[in-house]
């Protein structure tokens, strides 16, 4: 019973983490049809920026809880900066190219950014434990869990709901859905697709950076953290259906809980259980579990 609760809580925390890193990827894919490998860089830069800002914040004698603001500030700075620079500086020149070429271009950019990261922050790890120790821990069924980790679940729910409401209830969201359904017709109807793409990419980038920024206090921020994340996020997005936000949520839950179960019950399959699920889901439902409808173009 206790083991079950541990698996469930760990699984939910891990799912929330996965959702946070995957949702930006799926939003960008849904609107722009681009599988963005630099998402891993957004995550890594978000984490480093967050660790740096948190460190700087606790050098001051401002109120302790203000440290959380540093996390969100880091995500905004990284997301907006990279969102604009990459979309305007690179991607817009590639929209007419083959989808594989665009993936490769983002892969190349990812490699470049990995080294840029090293240039700025070096190879030593960064720690930003303050927000985590500030929240302490709670006991669930006689077991201790870090409160900070549990807030990740809340954050994922808020982000997921926010994006979903933003998409379905606001005018902007509806424009976005129109572009998702048919880019050419939207353009013909006077929707500023260029602007929609830029804003979408920035939002996606902020999401990626926020994932990294929020996770930073719980890990040692060191080189290579972007690599693992990008492959995980791919798996989640593919399982859920590329471009679907509820899909990303289900995908994250499926992967998160399976992995938590594997870690506790069958540690030897932990590493590939995720890809096994991905392969299985794709084999049964090629477009993922919640693939959005496609416009028929014949």
């Amino acid at each position, binding site marked *: 019973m206790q083991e079950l609760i541990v698996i469930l809580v760990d699984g939910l925390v891990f799912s929330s983490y996965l959702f946070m890193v995957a949702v930006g990827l799926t939003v960008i894919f849904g609107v722009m049809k681009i599988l963005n490998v630099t998402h891993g860089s957004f995550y890594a830069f978000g984490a480093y920026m967050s660790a740096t800002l948190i460190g700087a914040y606790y050098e001051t004698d401002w109120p302790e809880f203000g440290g959380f603001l540093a996390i969100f500030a880091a995500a905004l700075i990284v997301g907006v900066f990279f969102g604009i620079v990459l979309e305007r500086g690179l991607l817009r*020149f590639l929209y007419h190219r083959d989808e594989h070429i665009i*993936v490769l271009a983002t892969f190349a950019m990812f490699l470049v*950014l990995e080294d840029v990261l090293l240039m700025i922050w070096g190879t030593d790890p960064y720690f930003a434990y303050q927000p985590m120790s500030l929240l302490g821990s709670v006991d669930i069924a006689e077991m201790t869990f870090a409160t900070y980790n549990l807030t990740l679940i809340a954050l994922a729910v808020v982000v997921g709901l926010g994006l979903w409401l933003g998409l379905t209830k606001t005018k902007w969201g509806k424009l976005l859905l129109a572009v998702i359904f048919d880019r050419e017709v939207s353009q013909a109807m006077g929707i500023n697709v260029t602007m929609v793409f830029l804003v979408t990419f920035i939002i996606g980038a902020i999401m990626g950076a926020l994932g990294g920024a929020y996770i930073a206090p719980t890990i040692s921020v060191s080189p290579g953290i972007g690599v693992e994340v990008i492959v995980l996020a*791919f798996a989640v997005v593919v399982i859920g259906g590329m471009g679907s936000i509820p899909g990303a949520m289900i995908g994250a839950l499926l992967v998160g809980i399976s992995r938590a179960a594997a870690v506790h019950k069958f540690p030897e399959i932990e590493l*590939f259980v*995720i*890809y096994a699920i991905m*392969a299985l889901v794709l084999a049964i439902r090629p477009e993922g579990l919640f693939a959005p409808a496609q416009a028929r173009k014949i």
Partner: protein
Amino acid sequence: MRYLDKTVVGLSIAFLVLLFADFFMAEWVRFMGLQSLARGAVALGLLVLWRTGLVSFGHALYFGIGAYAAAMLTLVGYHDAFFLVFAGTLASGILAYLLGFLLRRYRGIFFALLNMAFSMILYGVIVKTEELGSTDGFSVLAPTFLGYAPEGEAVQTTLFLFTLFFTYIVTVGVHLYLKTTLGGMSMAVRENEIRVEYLGYSAEKVIHVKYVFSGLVAGFGGAIMALAIGQVDPDSMANWNVSGEFVFITILSGIGNVAATFIGAFVFELIRTYAFEYAPLFWQLILGGSLLAIIMFLPNGIWSLVDRLRKSEG
């Protein structure tokens, strides 16, 4: 005579030149050459797939299987290069044949990612298998060649000859194959599968054949690589960035000509080696930067330079 065109002649000359050069070239050049041939072989398979309209982000799977199959056989006492490379190639081919039944139903980004998923499963299995040295891998002893057991530098010299010979055969074979009906059907499937079906042939079958071929040559490349560097490990044999490098070589080379694949592989090797040597902190930046430059300014790869040269002459 009808099979002798410029490419075959060019490849044959290059083969003979390299054959003699093998005995004189510096050790590090030969080592780079071996790696280029191994990676080039994989890229050759990707070229065939790409012409069919498919890109795989997971061919490290077959590269890794080829490498590990050959390496594992050395653990149980087999050391003949002919046997090891044959076994590695065959193992990958069989796996590609089996997975092909599933993968031939997929196109576009799904094909690319499903391949990646399978390759990551292999990666996960290797990393979790202590018997195979987990993330460290294990060393592979120098191979013998039909009873001949070279020592010292002669190992690499012989291995280079061995690799060169088979790569030459395969490359000429692919070049000729691309001119056959089945080879040309790559174009047909890429351009219009419906039409192919309504001409009376199965597009999925075409894809399956090409996929098995790409698996075979990737296995060949992997087995050669294992023997060339005398070591196998998951991060340089089976991880996702290895697959990325293969696609990188394909982009670098362009899909216009089989010969370009090996030039591309060698250029890639040069960039990588020198970036690593002279700017160890920035080698990814240099690699990524060159890939971006090619995508932006040389969309058809280095072979388009050759084409341009020809046009300006003619």
